[in-house]
């Protein structure tokens, strides 16, 4: 079900974080034993076996939109650029790039001597082909939108590629992190029939070996990788749909890497034996969960009511109860610690008294003594809808229900199957309030979620948030490349959101990966732990698998 998680501006290759979704726990003593005592020099060898909840769907990045496919494609394919461990943009297949003074033209200077896994040379023609593939109306891809902003794309020479935009677009550069496809294998082929969907050929650090559907996918180190061959010789994805089974298999030694649930992290891994064999990590995921108010509903049109609801909800209690402490209070749409995050905004600590005062100011009083506030004979009652299959959201809803009843707000909770939930409730705007989450967005451009032009059926501003100033700030933020200027726009945007409370931001969950202790070289960073995967190694005397 996790692949159903709502998405915001994400690319298959950058999805590594999102798949480690199964969040959280509370023992923080042994978390960062990443130093791991004595380490021998890095040596090549050994296999990393990763537990994956779902099989990949297709290994052609342009068609794939699920997490597992994204992970594997991320190891097999490269983009022109990528995020480094601190989430700054760095070159991958592009050695460097120039941005024209008017921010409209990007010129990429590509690495020389890079070869596809089948030996063919990588050139700018491959980049141009990938662009054409993305915007081809016959390609059933979900990624076309951003590339349709490109006015012209051209190959200047074998290793120089240039794109021109009609309007400056801040996310233009990182959009070229999209995996580059091999032209010599795909040109003239009907893309949905391409054999590459089950046998990918990329330029990345790992080469595809085998795929037994529903069972496992095997990759091996690419000895010709342009950054030098990775140390870990093989990567094996094993498909184990049930998290309890996956955990048992990890304990029995059949897995080296998996994402834990908060319960597993907190309660089931705190034994000396487990700590000796595995290392646990936790860091905030690129995701947050919120309670969104449908602003078309009269009761939510008064800002004081929304503020009161935010004061009446104890977010820390939700984190402790639902995530067992593995999360932090969300105060806005950006991850705490990321460059766009503004920590200085108005906060809403748990304060039922203030909630009551604000509600009274807005005219809500319990005039008939039934314990529910009312105004002009209308009780302050609404229904929260959320989707089936996400226990965290349902539990959060129950906690919210209780807290709001304490300040005299009557809340019903409805849980609906995902497709019906979107079709009958969210898309037509037919709901009072909803608990949902956004995940995956590293760039702060959230135009599609908050701009007033995006309130149509099926669009993402389904709570119908209209704010002329926000519209203008979001427009400004996506049209400049200057990070300082963008930060100013987004800081102000976050202040308005904090004041207006169209969402009550609930929590940022944590990713809780666990890795077998023999793996060294792991460096937790803002980007997670997989950012330097090619530099992970196992000291020769501890290597477990020889083939």
């Amino acid at each position, binding site marked *: 079900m996790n692949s159903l998680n709502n998405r915001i501006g994400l690319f298959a290759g950058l999805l590594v974080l999102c798949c480690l979704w199964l969040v959280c726990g509370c023992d923080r003593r042994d978390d960062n034993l990443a130093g791991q005592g004595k380490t021998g020099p890095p040596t090549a060898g050994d296999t990393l076996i990763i537990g994956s909840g779902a099989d990949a769907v297709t290994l052609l990045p342009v*068609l794939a939109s699920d997490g597992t496919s994204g992970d594997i494609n991320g190891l097999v394919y490269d983009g022109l650029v990528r995020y480094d461990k601190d989430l700054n943009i760095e070159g991958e297949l592009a050695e460097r790039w120039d941005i024209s003074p008017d921010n409209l033209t990007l010129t990429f200077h590509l690495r020389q001597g890079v070869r596809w896994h089948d030996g063919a040379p990588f050139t700018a023609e491959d980049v141009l082909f990938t662009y054409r593939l993305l915007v081809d109306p016959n390609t059933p891809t979900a990624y076309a939108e951003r590339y349709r902003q490109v006015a012209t794309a051209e190959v200047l020479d074998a290793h120089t590629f240039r794109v021109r935009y009609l309007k400056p677009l801040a996310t233009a550069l990182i959009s070229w992190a999209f995996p580059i496809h091999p032209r010599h294998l795909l040109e003239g082929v009907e893309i949905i029939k391409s054999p590459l969907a089950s046998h990918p050929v990329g330029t990345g650090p790992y080469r595809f070996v085998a795929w037994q559907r529903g069972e496992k996918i095997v990759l091996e180190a690419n000895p010709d990788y342009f950054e030098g061959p990775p140390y870990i010789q093989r990567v094996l994805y094993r498909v184990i749909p049930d998290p309890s089974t996956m955990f048992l298999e990890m304990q029995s030694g059949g897995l080296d890497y998996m994402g834990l649930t908060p319960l597993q992290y907190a309660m089931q891994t705190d034994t000396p034996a487990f700590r000796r064999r595995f290392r646990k990590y936790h860091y905030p995921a690129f995701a947050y969960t919120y309670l969104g108010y449908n602003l078309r509903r009269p009761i939510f049109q008064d800002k004081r009511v929304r503020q009161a609801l935010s004061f009446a909800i104890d977010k820390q209690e939700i984190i402790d109860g639902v995530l067992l402490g593995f999360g932090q209070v969300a105060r806005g749409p950006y991850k705490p610690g990321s460059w766009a995050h503004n920590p200085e905004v108005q906060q809403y600590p748990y304060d039922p008294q203030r909630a009551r005062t604000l509600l009274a100011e807005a005219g809500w009083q319990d005039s008939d003594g039934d314990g529910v506030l009312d105004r002009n004979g209308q009780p302050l009652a609404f229904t929260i809808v959320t989707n089936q299959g996400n226990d965290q959201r349902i539990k959060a809803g129950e906690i919210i229900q209780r807290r709001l009843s304490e300040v005299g707000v009557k809340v019903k909770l409805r849980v609906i199957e995902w*497709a019906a939930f979107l079709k009958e409730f969210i*898309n037509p705007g037919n709901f009072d309030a909803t608990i949902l989450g956004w995940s995956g967005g590293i760039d702060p451009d959230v135009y599609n979620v908050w701009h007033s032009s995006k309130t149509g059926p099926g669009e993402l501003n389904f709570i119908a948030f209209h704010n002329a100033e926000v519209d203008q700030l979001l427009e400004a933020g996506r049209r400049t490349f200057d990070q300082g200027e963008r930060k100013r726009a987004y800081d102000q945007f976050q202040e308005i959101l904090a004041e207006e409370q169209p969402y009550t931001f609930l929590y940022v969950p944590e990713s809780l990966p666990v890795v077998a202790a023999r793996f060294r070289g792991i460096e937790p960073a803002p980007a997670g732990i997989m950012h330097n995967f090619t530099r992970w190694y196992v000291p020769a005397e501890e290597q477990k698998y020889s083939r």
Partner: protein
Amino acid sequence: MLPYLFKRLLLMVPLLLGITLISFVVIHLAPGEPTDLQTQLNPEVSAELQQRLRAQYDLDQPLMVQYGKWLGRLVRLDFGDSFSQDRRPVTAKIAERLPVTILINVLSIGLILVVAVPIGILSAVRRNSHFDRLTTVFVFVGFATPSFWLALLLMDVLGVRYGLFPIVGLKSLGYDYLSWSGRVFDMAHHLVLPVFVSAFGGLAGFSRYMRANMLEVIRQDYILTARAKGLTEKAVICKHALRNALLPVITILGLSVPGLIGGSVIFETIFAIPGMGKLFYDGVMMRDYPLIMGILVIGAVLTLVGNLLADLGYALADPRIRHS
């Protein structure tokens, strides 16, 4: 016999058409579409792109046109291509999952028969004995035990703590490097827990059924006659009573034919076995219409054929039916 068979086969055609039509309409009634996973709540997708994707799957056409197209392919025995992003033929997807599911189901039905039939006979013959009561409790415990719970318990104790059995999948990681006999042993080793768990819950129904049949038969006059002839008790039970008591079993076996291709989602999920149950479940969740319809058609055909086989088997086994 032959005209009867022919009539039955002919009648299956409109029945099958009706089944497919109803299934097709019903699965399209459920909200959601195959393109939703790619396009819903995805800021990268515009309304126009959504329309284009829908058109690629023919979803923009009236339901009856879609059904007509699907039926046209089916007549040529083509189940079409899956709507999931890999767009592989439905037959290929089913073919790679079917052997595992059939293997496990055959083994587990076999195990159920081997265990439940003797239990049923003995319980009937020694009605209300300690054995009868004990096995009754045992099979009902089996019936009432949630299979996922039993599976996890066995995996934890026998798999993790004692390391006796592998807990995930049907093959070891080194399977490809094993010799031929090593592979057979490896697979058998992996099959022990799943087959045991899936058979455990089925014991109750079958053994109670067998017991009731046997009790029914033992009361008949011809058993009294057999005993009066002075036959040994063994001969009475094994030759005269058992044969007659087994007749209804044919019906049950006939009815389990479609069950052979149906797996259990929960069970396959827990043991990480890529079988039909998970395939169908994922297909439904993704609204992969061709895949859903493909599995439903196979299931419907097998149900009809199973019923026919049961009737024929009955006729072959029981002269009373054959002659009437």
